[in-house]
């Protein structure tokens, strides 16, 4: 049994179907990365898992229990096990609470009255390398990187089994990013934490993720081990995405594969393969609708895959 089992998850906002059926699993201690263009539905997936976005169809099983459509009362005890790290580090912290209140709020919500909250605040701040006197500060007094670390501290407060992290390192300096990723890797090893991580930074994916899924227009188009996908991407969209990764070397020769045009509107999904109109490798057969096919643990939705 997988820790998290998402099956055919669908979300629509009115006529806009943001998720058109997303399926993947995450095992205990595993890190799974979701990548893809802005607007491809990555954030909606993890918000739907956490019960923060609606999902009209499909299933989300956590430790074998169905949690899609669970009521707030049913979700509350689960929130101890599933923690969320939000995209906007400052915006996700209430401006009127001190950092101490913010990072110890999970204990109060879960009714853990026996805890010494001052001691917990100190421990959590230390864990994310922030000085203890930050407990008395307010979010506006923090830099983006510091707010990000407060977000990590808050997510880790209850020692969850699964962390859903939405762009956890966006806007961080490389050194601080390294610290944060090391911290998350370390916690994963010590606590057996599983993670679903969304990021635009492919270099981050390579270092933290065991497996990755590539999303396009609210669907997975490719999935596999991080190693296999970086080595041999088979979906043309994955190939384009990986080729776009800027190298920190002015002499690097990059063979960029340009994507044509703009992402299509979700109100007018293209017929056949939805990537066809922008695909540099499209063929005649692509007018048909590709199905999701899995071979050797590598999933693919493409009628003309690259070899």
């Amino acid at each position, binding site marked *: 049994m997988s820790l998290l089992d998402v099956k055919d998850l669908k979300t629509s906002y009115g006529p806009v179907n943001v998720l058109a059926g997303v399926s993947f699993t995450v095992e205990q201690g595993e890190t799974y990365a979701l990548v893809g263009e802005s607007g491809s539905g990555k954030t909606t997936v993890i918000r739907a898992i956490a019960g923060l976005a609606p999902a009209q169809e499909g299933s989300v099983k956590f430790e074998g229990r169905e949690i899609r459509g669970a009521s707030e009362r049913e979700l509350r005890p689960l929130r101890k096990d599933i923690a969320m790290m939000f995209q906007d580090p400052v915006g996700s912290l209430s401006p009127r609470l001190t950092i101490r209140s913010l990072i110890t709020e999970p204990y109060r919500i879960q009714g853990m009255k026996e805890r010494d909250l001052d001691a917990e605040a100190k421990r959590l701040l230390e864990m994310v390398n922030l000085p203890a006197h930050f407990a008395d500060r307010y979010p506006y007094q923090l830099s983006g990187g510091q707010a990000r670390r407060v977000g990590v501290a808050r997510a880790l407060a209850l020692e969850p089994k699964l962390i859903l992290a939405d762009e956890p390192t966006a806007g961080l300096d490389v050194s601080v990013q390294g610290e944060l990723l090391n911290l998350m890797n370390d916690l994963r090893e010590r606590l057996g934490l599983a993670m679903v991580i969304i990021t635009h930074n492919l270099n981050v994916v*390579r270092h933290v993720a065991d497996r990755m899924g590539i999303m396009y227009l609210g669907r997975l188009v490719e999935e596999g081990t991080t190693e296999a996908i970086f080595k041999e991407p088979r979906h043309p969209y994955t190939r384009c995405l990986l080729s776009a990764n800027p190298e920190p070397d002015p002499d690097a020769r990059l063979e960029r594969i340009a994507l044509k045009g703009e992402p299509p509107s979700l109100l007018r999904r293209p017929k056949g393969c939805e990537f066809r109109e922008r695909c540099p490798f499209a063929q005649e057969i692509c007018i048909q609708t590709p199905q999701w096919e899995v071979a050797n643990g590598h999933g693919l939705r493409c009628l003309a895959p690259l070899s």
Partner: protein
Amino acid sequence: MTDTLLEIDRLSVDYETARGDLKALRDISFDVRKGEIVGIVGESGCGKSTLISSILRLTAPNTRFRQGEVRFRGEDLLQLPERKMRDLRGADISIVFQDPMQTHNPVLSIGQQMLDIQHRSKASKADKRARAAQMLGAVGIPDPEARLDQFPHEFSGGMRQRIAIAMALMSEPDLLIADEPTTALDATLEVQIIERLQELQQEFDCAILFISHHLGVIAELCDRVVVMYAGAVVESGEVREIFHDPKHPYTRRLIDCDPGHIKERARVLPTIPGEVPDLANLPGGCIFRDRCDQAMPRCAAEVPPLEQLKDGHQAACWLNHKEAAE
């Protein structure tokens, strides 16, 4: 020099706070030549934003300019009357901000906003509209004429950032300041923006001051790089020199930290241990000393000056000093 567009000359800027003066910029010097792309790299809090707001003179009320000049085409901007400064902003110097989602007014159409920023022009409304459409076309927005009537929410993030670039370039400025313009975008869009900036820079022949902490983007786009740490310039030079032969330990560590360099999956990524010093209470000597694994006694005693090592490559570190070999 005739081809120098912007010269930052020994600029020092403080913020007055309850804790005392925060020395946000100290003795900053570098220049930007006409038609050149200069990158500024450095961690959060190194003074990148203070630098930009000082150039544009859009500083917070508690800002104090302690010394130095910001010369644009030979004229010190810090001495200009506000009225003249306003004429420069958006016309000769323009800026693209970090977040494309918050740059535009959500309740006005893109076309209206692009007309509004041509308020200085005497052209007819129809001409201004045509100019707006032409600029949208130049940044690769399909159907520009029709899309002028759309609102910001009807564009994707990448398109909005390209619209911001179109608006910044509309007056054909001599200097475009780009403040982390790709941070909020994914890899494919990031590349799109970089390539577009390169093309436009050729087309409009403007200089670009490009602020980023993404080393890959800097390496790809810039001619020269200025590395800042805790409010000071620690190294500057040609992009190849900086990436292949860095002369300041901080630059070296920063490049080592970039996971883009590490092709195999690493269990532990390199970091720079320690914290940036408190700018209100600066230690003596070299500011990077506490985090530097090559620090010597001299580093605690004296601040290393920014020295010319070879043509166009400068670094502020005692390790490069001739006497260090003794």
